[in-house]
């Protein structure tokens, strides 16, 4: 169920330069699953479209979002204060089907601003006693959210500058630590997702990857945010699935990226 409703900001804090942590009291939490996202509407009247922000954590009182400042909308969000009311719509997208992951050895891979959505997933998997290891790729030693992941697993880290963990990206960390998985769940930049798709094919395992695309409506009406699919999509029958509706989580075999 999707809701368009006002939420109340609980807290905003900076986790790392340009990376912000926004907690909002909202009953959208009651309908959310890991891997989904929420549209947040800026108040600035020059930027009218809502911003799709992935859910980092589903809390007792609402939702937690961790995002990077990428433009006017997210810059505005970073300046919110506790008590501010903000308009939200969601939860949106398919999210992860945890049932498909039961009894599997799962790696949750997050790269850069793809780290946050992996937190709720890792937490959810752990609560179902699924064997999960989070592998997080950062630019440098500013390991935002790592402490949160450590509550649920022995987090593996890669940094581009080699300052902590494996030097390189999440794939390098998988190799260096000789990690094996039945299923990979990943969110991150496109080159990382392409590498994971190739890796999953080589290893003959399943990879669920989270895609990003510019969106307008967020609910599947505008057809702005499509991803090329290998099979005919069920909406337009043209191998163009809607990231906001059929996605953002896709089996890597089923998308052409």
């Amino acid at each position, binding site marked *: *169920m*999707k809701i*368009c409703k006002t939420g109340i900001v609980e807290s905003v804090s900076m986790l790392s330069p340009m990376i912000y942590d926004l907690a909002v009291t909202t009953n959208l939490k009651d309908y959310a699953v890991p891997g989904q996202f929420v549209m947040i*509407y800026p108040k600035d*009247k*020059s*930027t*009218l*479209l*809502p911003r799709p922000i992935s859910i980092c954590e589903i809390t007792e009182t609402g939702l937690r979002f961790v995002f990077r400042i990428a433009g006017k909308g997210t810059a505005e969000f970073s300046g919110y204060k506790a008590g501010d009311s903000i308009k939200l*719509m969601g939860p949106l997208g398919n999210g992860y089907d945890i049932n498909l992951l039961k009894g599997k050895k799962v790696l949750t891979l997050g790269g850069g601003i793809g780290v946050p959505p992996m937190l709720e997933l890792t937490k959810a998997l752990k609560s179902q006693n699924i064997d999960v290891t989070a592998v997080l790729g950062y630019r440098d030693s500013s390991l935002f959210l790592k402490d949160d992941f450590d509550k649920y697993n022995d987090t593996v880290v890669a940094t581009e500058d080699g300052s902590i963990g494996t030097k390189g990206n999440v794939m390098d960390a998988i190799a260096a630590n000789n990690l094996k998985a039945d299923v990979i769940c990943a969110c991150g930049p496109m080159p990382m997702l392409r590498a994971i798709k190739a890796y999953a094919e080589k290893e003959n395992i399943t990879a669920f990857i989270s895609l990003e*695309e*510019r*969106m*307008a*409506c*967020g*609910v*599947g*009406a*505008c*057809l*702005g*945010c*499509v*991803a090329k699919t290998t099979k005919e999509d069920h*909406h*337009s*029958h*043209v*191998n*163009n699935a809607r990231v906001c*509706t059929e996605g953002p989580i896709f089996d890597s075999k089923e998308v052409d990226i």
Partner: protein
Amino acid sequence: MNTAVKIAGVEFKNPVTTASGTFGSGMEYGEFVDLNKLGAITTKGVASVAWPGNPTPRVTEVYGGMLNAIGLQNPGIEVFCERDIPFLKQYDTKIIVNVCGKTVEEYLAVVERLQNEPVDMLEINVSCPNVKEGAIAFGQDAKALENITKQIKKVAKQPVIMKLSPNVTRIADMAKAAEAAGADAISLINTITGMKIDIKRRKFVLANKTGGMSGPAIKPVAVRMVYEASHAVNIPVIGMGGIASAEDAIEFMMAGATMVAVGAANFINPNTTIEVVDGITEFMLRHGIQDINEIVGCV
């Protein structure tokens, strides 16, 4: 108090519909608004066969609006007739099917296929700026518009609305051409062609380079064109372009629109359509307007 309006013999319970392409066939917005409350639902454009649309990025934000270059992705008329029409028939609202094509023949194929379908009106999209062939080429030349309108009217069993492009020198000439060829109504404006450049990457933001601009930013241009077009013809006008509130809708009606459509505002607030419907009634109450038809073209 009367909020009903009539176009080409079709009566709408209120003058509010959706702008094609912003509301799908209503399925996605049914979770937010009661579709029964809308005067009509105007569907996303449908072609004779499935169209894949343009590469991404297809949408981007601009000051007070957005650009889109979807490229009319659609499942084709067969899937539409099997899936979308039965869905829409569940609701107590009128159905306006937006029709697109690359050639006259493609438009005619869709119009013909719809002959015996339970839809109320056809809106012919001759103004989409985002597809390479057809579409806008018919909407930027009065002769071409007149020709395609005539041919469609020969085949159509439902009343025909021609949807006009604002990317023309004289909108009144286009409106007259549509009327002369037998169109039952005209709708305007489609989007205004725009462009956005990512100056850091030195690249067009949209894969299609240009896109159609919509949103509150284009409203003054749309109101002006609705005024000019409605004063040039005797057929009814459906007005659209930046409508985000009942006040906006009333402005279009005062300029000459018998009916209005909510477009990009659906993306900015999924409840916009219903807020416009309810807001029109409130405005009528507040200003002692007995019949909404009173205000059409009253300025």
